[in-house]
């Protein structure tokens, strides 16, 4: 363990433990108007009429006609309106806000507003592709023509809800100079700012966005707050008063983005030595009613088509389909969890049908340093998977359990997944779209404030970034401060997404800190700035989907042991063993928190968290019915970080946040398959599904 990995007390610990931390619902704003959203009750149709009862003094409605600029929320496109105007496309789509000082009155008026629709047939089938990508490598047709064996399977994955601590919330208020300030629970203050600029049609100085304390986000607060931010800004502009829009949990679950359901068909071509030499992948994602980030999610899924393996001949294509359902969006892993689930299952099933141990079969295909990536880039850095696998097998006692459980019909099983995560934005996103900037501000007493747009949303980035800056400066960590981002004070260092904060933003901060150290004069106010410059070796052709999709890759191996109750098919986790290569762990306890939280969320995605839509309406709308794990459901975890410093990362750090989720679902599914002796192709593998498999499934 390097010095930087030795843990310090989290920056946010005291405020959170004492209850002082101010989340968005804790903000007391004088004279605030409480906003309630009136939403579509149908999946598709035209709005014919909106009947609003006479409004008491001081109560307002805010709808599309109040939008001064463009009625579209900029995410990548502006395809989603701030308020529905002539048509609605999903149940829960916002039509207007009711705002007033008295919640009782606002609630009553929101309930009595009648929207008349002309209903149209809703589309739930995946037929309307709004994003399509494809790429090829080698000669997959030839590989399939000459194959000794071909194996094809289709895998399905369901929705997953982020289940952050506090629901979405945004508060806005007018400043004396006409500026509107927004404070909210969010990951990406500049996403919110840029979306609102277009909606208000104002100049850069017209909007200020500040992140409130945020209790988890997991991608759910990446693009969604751009919508609530735009709505609140329009309401503040119209009323001239502070406006607070706080979602209830059920409302939040019903209308906010979640993980894309997927259907993935994989065909593998094997040569005479029983090696997978060719792969064809067809990927479908349900984007919901608006495309949002779905195209980018799709591209990350497609790039991961080979899993952690090198397969020379590839043909990969995918579509994100528009349906009349709640829009899906960013969620930790961003398309990779779906793809890795499918590939890992495919490899496991192939191994079983060929008489291999699944781990032994996977080992035959592992990507190695200097191999070509799926998109013809290169894995430049050392890949430690073989020794990581050895370590996980040994700690989990895999070989003995694998034999013993199979023999005595114990309804116990153990499974292993191998995976990676591409760190940072896909392709040239950092250089062409984000162009991150950071600034350090030193006062006369030598205190240094870190000005970045990165949001600490519970993952601990304020602690990690402080450690990096203090470490480079050679000064105590408690002289470095990382406030919640404020767009009036911090430059745009990009969104807090894509496992980029430590590696990219932390890397820029390390360089800025080196500059500041060089120029350091005691007793003088000083500052230092840095901006992102793409390393020369990264080359990515967006059109051709060719080249280095990521500057670096983090790697992981996870083993899960389960016991299945033979009466109820209920799954109990007996143990979770993982090994992760994140370059360098900047703070070991923080990293463990990320790892154990991530793997738990990933495992739950595989066997527990079930969300279905019927006729456009979610069936599980609260945490009674949408089952996320409690502490009683989590098995013991045993987690190791291996050192493999990345030359371009601060102290050698690579991405961490998303990696740890990715191996959970395939590992737990493989373990359940081992326990019940049936093949699983659909997650979540709920007890109801397992019963069905036991009664009718395939060995």
């Amino acid at each position: 363990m390097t010095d930087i990995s030795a843990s310090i007390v989290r920056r946010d610990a005291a405020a959170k433990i004492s209850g002082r931390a101010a989340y968005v619902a804790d903000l007391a704003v004088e004279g605030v108007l409480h906003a309630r959203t009136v939403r579509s009750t149908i999946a598709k149709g035209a709005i014919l009429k909106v009947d609003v009862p006479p409004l008491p003094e001081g109560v307002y409605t805010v709808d599309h006609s109040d939008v001064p600029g463009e009625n579209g929320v900029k995410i990548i496109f502006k395809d989603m309106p701030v308020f529905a105007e002539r048509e609605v496309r999903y149940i829960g789509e916002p039509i207007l806000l009711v705002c007033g000082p008295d919640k009782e009155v606002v609630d009553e008026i929101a309930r009595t507003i009648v929207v008349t629709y002309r209903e149209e047939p809703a589309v739930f089938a995946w037929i309307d592709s709004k994003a399509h990508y494809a790429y090829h490598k080698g000669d997959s047709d030839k590989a399939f023509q000459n194959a000794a064996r071909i194996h094809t399977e289709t895998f399905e994955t369901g929705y997953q809800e982020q289940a952050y601590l506090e629901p979405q919330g945004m508060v806005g208020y007018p400043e004396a100079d006409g500026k509107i300030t927004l404070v909210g629970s969010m990951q990406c203050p500049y996403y919110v700012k840029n979306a609102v600029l277009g909606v208000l049609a104002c100049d850069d100085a017209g909007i200020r966005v500040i992140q409130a304390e945020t209790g988890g986000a997991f991608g759910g607060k990446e693009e969604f707050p751009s919508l609530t931010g735009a709505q609140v800004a329009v309401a503040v502009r119209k009323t001239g008063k502070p406006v607070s829009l706080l979602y209830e949990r059920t409302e939040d679950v019903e209308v906010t983005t979640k993980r894309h359901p997927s259907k993935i068909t994989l065909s593998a071509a094997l040569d005479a030595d029983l090696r997978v030499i060719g792969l064809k992948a067809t990927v479908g994602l349900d984007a919901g009613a608006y495309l949002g980030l779905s195209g980018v999610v799709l591209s990350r899924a497609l790039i991961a088509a080979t899993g952690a393996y090198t397969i020379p001949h590839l043909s990969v294509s995918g579509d994100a389909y528009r349906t009349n359902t709640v829009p899906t969006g960013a969620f930790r892993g961003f398309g990779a969890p779906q793809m890795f689930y499918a590939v890992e299952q495919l490899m496991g099933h192939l191994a079983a049908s060929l008489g291999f141990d699944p781990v032994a079969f996977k080992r035959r295909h592992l990507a190695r340093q200097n191999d070509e990536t799926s998109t013809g880039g290169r894995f430049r850095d050392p890949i430690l998977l073989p020794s990581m696998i050895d370590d996980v097998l040994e700690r989990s006692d895999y070989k003995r359990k694998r034999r013993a459980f199979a023999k005595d019909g114990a309804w116990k099983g153990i499974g292993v997944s191998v995976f990676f995560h591409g760190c940072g934005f896909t392709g040239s996103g950092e250089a062409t779209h984000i162009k991150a900037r950071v600034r350090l501000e030193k006062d006369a007493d030598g205190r240094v404030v870190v000005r970045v747009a990165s949001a600490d949303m519970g993952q601990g980035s304020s602690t990690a970034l402080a450690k990096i800056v203090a470490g480079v400066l050679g000064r105590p960590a408690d002289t470095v401060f990382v406030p919640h981002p404020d767009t009036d004070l911090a430059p745009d260092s990009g969104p807090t997404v894509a496992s980029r904060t430590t590696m990219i933003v932390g890397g820029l901060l390390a360089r800025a800190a080196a500059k500041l150290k060089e120029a350091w004069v005691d007793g003088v106010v000083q500052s230092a700035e840095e901006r992102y410059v793409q390393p020369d070796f990264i080359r990515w052709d967006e059109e051709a989907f060719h080249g280095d999709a990521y500057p670096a890759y983090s790697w992981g191996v996870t083993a899960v042991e389960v016991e299945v109750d033979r009466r109820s098919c209920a799954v109990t986790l007996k143990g979770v063993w993982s090994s992760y290569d994140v370059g360098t762990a900047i703070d070991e306890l923080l990293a463990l928190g990320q790892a154990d939280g991530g793997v738990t969320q990933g495992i739950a995605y595989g066997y527990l968290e079930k969300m279905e839509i019927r006729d456009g309406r979610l069936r599980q709308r609260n945490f009674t019915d949408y089952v996320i794990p409690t502490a009683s459901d989590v098995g013991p975890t045993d987690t190791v970080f291996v050192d493999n410093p990345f030359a371009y990362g601060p102290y050698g750090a690579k991405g961490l946040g998303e990696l740890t989720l990715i191996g959970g679902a395939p590992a737990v599914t493989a373990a359940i398959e081992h326990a019940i002796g049936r093949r699983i192709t659909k997650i979540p593998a709920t007890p109801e599904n397992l019963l069905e498999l036991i009664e009718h499934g395939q060995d």
Partner: protein
Amino acid sequence: MVADRIPDTKAEALALLAAGGGPVVSGGTDLMVKRRRWGGLTPMIPDKAVYVANIAELSYVKKTGGSVEIGAETPLAVLLDHPFTPALLRAAIRETAGPGIRNTATLAGNLVNASPAADPALALHCLSASVRLESARGVRTVALSDFATGPGRTLLLPDELLTAILVPADDAWKTMFVKVGGRKADAIAKVSFAGAVKLDGGVLTAFAAAFGAVGPTILRSFAIEAKVIGLSPADVRERLTDLSAAYADVIRPIDDQRSDAHYRKTVALNLLADFIRSI
């Protein structure tokens, strides 16, 4: 004023109910959720509701004659640790909700809420418990098997208060409680089972099997139970197929957002089989 509706004594509570007060709010853990509104607004509970959780005289556990008598306002957390709590009820309470809810939730609330998925109610059903219903007009005792008439519906009249639960005290019961929830804590049962059996001289002298979340009310079949009285455990095991078939006829679960009918029925019968094999 709400304060007027928080009686300190049973007599005051009955008087309020006699004067048209109600509904009764006990621990509130179901009602507060069902009637919740937008955050910051109080739940939609009528002004004339009567809040009985403060009535000290209704919070007790005692042995009387052949019964354990439990005051209706005794919190589940107290029952979890009380030496007189029947083992089957204790097992059910251990799997009910989480510690926070158990600190305020009561058996009375659990029974009057009349959910077929309720955990403590399932154990009490299996133990042939009864409830004491009091009003200004008088007192009556109703068997739990008759009390619930549907989801959220019971024989309780608007002026009546459920004041006590009477459980036949018998340490000779051999019992099993299994709750199958979506997760291992803070869950609502997808299907649940409570079994109780008494053996004397190598034969069954009593047998009870109660099923949760497989119909509109908790299910017990006295007709099927009567068939096994007097048999030896080996005889009962031999008739498992017939017994399962008999229960399969009366277990009629539904599909909903938590599970499906086929799963519920299959698992309910698996749990029954498991219990019978354990006798």
